């Protein structure tokens, strides 16, 4: 069967102004038990963290361990 691309709203939000991924920080990516975060290139040439897989347990290590408080976890839409 053919595959579709369906949009999904994800609960982890990263503040690009605070995120220090450009300096090599990968803390949130490292601590996520589900491994859903990645460092991505932004259009202005800097880097930031993003939730790229919709597989969140809203468990909070990414938010709790972020050294610059750039990460905010909200409750996934389906259950909030």
């Amino acid at each position: 069967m053919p595959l579709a691309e369906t949009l999904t709203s994800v609960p982890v939000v990263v503040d690009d102004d605070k995120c220090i991924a450009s300096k090599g920080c990968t803390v949130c990516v490292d601590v996520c038990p589900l491994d859903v975060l990645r460092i991505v290139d932004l259009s202005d040439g800097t880097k930031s963290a993003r939730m790229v897989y919709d597989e969140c347990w809203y468990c909070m290590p990414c938010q709790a361990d972020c050294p610059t408080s750039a990460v905010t976890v909200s409750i996934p839409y389906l259950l909030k």
Partner: protein
Amino acid sequence: MDDIKQGSSQIECDVLVLGGGTAGPMAALKAKKQNPKANVVLLEKANVKRSGAICMGMDGLNNAVIPGYATPEQYTKEITIANDGIVDQEAVYRYAAGCYEIIEELDRFGIRFQKDQNGEYDVKKVHHIGTYVLPMPNGDTVKKALYRQLRKARINISNRYMATRLLKGEDRIAGAICVNTRTAEFLTIKAKSVIMCMGAAGRLGLPSSGYLYGTYENPVNSGDGYAMAYHAGADLANLECFQINPLIKDYNGPACAYVAGPLGGYTANGDGDRFIECDYWSGQMMQEFYDELQSGKGPVFLKLNHLADETVAEIERTLHIVERPSRGLFHEGRGTDYRKQMIEMHISEIGFCSGHSASGVYVDENARTSVQGLYAAGDMANVPHNYMLGAFTNGGYAGLDAAQYSADVDFARFDEEQIEIEKARVLAPTKRSDGLPPNQIEYKIRRLVNDYLQPPKVTRKIELGLARFAEAREDLEQSMMVSNSHELMRALEVASVMDCAEMAAHASLYRKESRWGLYHNRVEYAGKNDEEWFCHTLLSKSDSGEYSLRKQDVKPYIVDIEEHERDAYEHQRVKSEPAVAAASTL
């Protein structure tokens, strides 16, 4: 991103620990302590820093046997009764006798436990009979404290490697095959002993929210350990004794009557009335919970709004910091204030987890499985109701025994063909350019689990479920496709979910009685039938690769249970006042 790379390497070690959550780190530490020369490898699918069921810590010990408050005899008795008698007491007793030492050790690691004004442990009563619940004021630090110890002990940690199958040779354990979750490269680890600490089967049922990852358990615990043990020929015990828990509806995390109970909170029905005498999680309690949900007095709530402000604040301080700290956020979104409203509760999806029930890989008091050199501890081993402290304590016992065992044996020779067969199985979804993605197959399997396996269990429904599972299995084996290594990890997890679903169905069909309250409520076989079913049921893989089931005697008790004590957990419902009872008949 997450490109699939070709690659394969091989290492060897004395003790291989699979899973870096709770039991795993303690197993690795104890193995290294027992034999400092041993090469101990701790393998983790995520990152040991924040992995497993307690990635954000824990609010307390739910089963602490502390001298002066409880004895190992009392605890063994309580768990035997709570688990309807189907208990090999030696493992429970050994846990109970050894857990205080582990508490002291955790204390030395920097994890504090609540003490009263006299400096004594402030143990609370939550269980039906005894007193075993000990709050942890800095329970958010558990994983960090463990990680420090692992670094200090120079344990070799391999993060982002997922074990997929065990290797066997000479009729004993020979190691494990693993896949990197970021690159899909293979790692074969030859090991003299393997300790499986791979957590619950938490992605078995589908949560009522419909969100695949909105599970009670950390969804990373997808039942891989159960599936691997099965394929290695190990016995799995009492899988029909499902885990079903009372939770905050939709959020699907614990309402935490264990925290709120000792401070005056309780589980109430729609009228705000208490209907169960004891909030300790047991199958019998869950049956009452289920009955209340179905009755005109449902749904069920956690009631705190009768408590003083400062008491509620104290409860919030604990519940919103540890274990599932996003609870506060959830309530905020719904506008629920503990001081004003009761908190709506519901029952969880089904799963396997001995941490709260009893389903697991069959182990003895040394955490040995039925396969030589293979150990299991924590949520996936069948020591009933063992919670976090059981994972630590039994993980420790596994580490000690595995280190001793490994000192006396050489590596088992094994047929290299096992590796090639497994590589072909693992990589199959990467070879397809058209097919079904793992998330859709997973959704379907888990929706079918809800439709056909969720208690009350009906024979015809379970049989229909098995027929639907067979169709899903064909999709999984013939059509599942992935585009990167992350999806490949999920695909492998879905294969574990599939195995667990079929095991749950077969085990449920086999035990033709009802036991453990709601956990194994077989509608056509009401009530316990001790004559025929006072036994373990063991599931294993037959020589022809089929699910095979047999009975095994419960080992003779070492702590006697008096006749009048046996049914203590069957009296969960609050007795209604005669006047009220009379009024309700009008």
